[in-house]
């Protein structure tokens, strides 16, 4: 996994690991915004075609905010891909599957079942198993 740390010295704000977290946080923010927007516009139209395409949701700022966050996460992700092997980056960014249920509970007041808690714990453990050697290498550098 040493290939993960062969990137040149970058300023802290361009650190690819920081951008993995940023990408995950922006996807989380995007999902919350899209959900808020979709809820607000759920009963705006009664046209089946417009309903199924989700076009009605474009009428709220929440959805545009969600799209902006999603684009931001894509830019962060492209930066990550420049420096970190795909199999490490893709698995680390799965931390978003922990952030999204937590954000759903905190901002949308959704219920997190014990089974979901167990799944979140396993994802966290998996991310920790992959990330720990990388953190050790960074500390030595």
């Amino acid at each position: 996994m040493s290939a993960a740390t062969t990137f040149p010295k970058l300023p802290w704000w361009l650190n690819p690991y920081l951008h993995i977290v940023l990408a995950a946080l922006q996807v989380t923010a995007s999902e919350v915004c899209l959900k808020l927007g979709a809820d607000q516009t759920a009963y705006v139209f009664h046209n089946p075609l417009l309903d199924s395409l989700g076009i009605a949701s474009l009428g709220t700022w929440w959805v545009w905010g969600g799209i902006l966050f999603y684009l931001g996460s894509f830019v962060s992700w492209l930066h990550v891909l420049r420096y970190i092997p795909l199999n490490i980056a893709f698995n680390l960014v799965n931390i978003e599957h922990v952030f999204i249920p937590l954000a759903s509970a905190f901002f949308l007041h959704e219920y997190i079942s014990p089974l979901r808690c167990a799944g979140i714990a396993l994802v966290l453990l998996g991310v920790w198993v992959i990330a720990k050697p990388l953190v050790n290498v960074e500390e030595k550098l």
Partner: protein
Amino acid sequence: MNLTAIFLIIFSQVCLVAGQIWLKHAMNQTHHETVKRSTFILNFGLGISAMTLWFLLWLGLMRHFDLSYLYPFEGLSPLLMAAGASIFLKEKMTWRLWGGILLISIGLALVSAS
């Protein structure tokens, strides 16, 4: 769930993995002092196309199946990604990485099934 549906689910995940691999190829190009513009555009375009196809397939599948039934299959993507990165990008795999991937896959399946 019939064979066609299973094929489409697996194909959608393959599209996701292929898209990420092409994007990675494209971004690797940017490290070279003389970026081959045509190679970059080709890989970037293929990556975006494959990911668009994945998105549309996934949307289509969600119209026909319950989300709780469909989403556990997302747990396949870390495993497929590891295989793809290892074969096509020659990235090094370790037992620790495989262990982490397995935990994430099971965790994703549990989160989705809940």
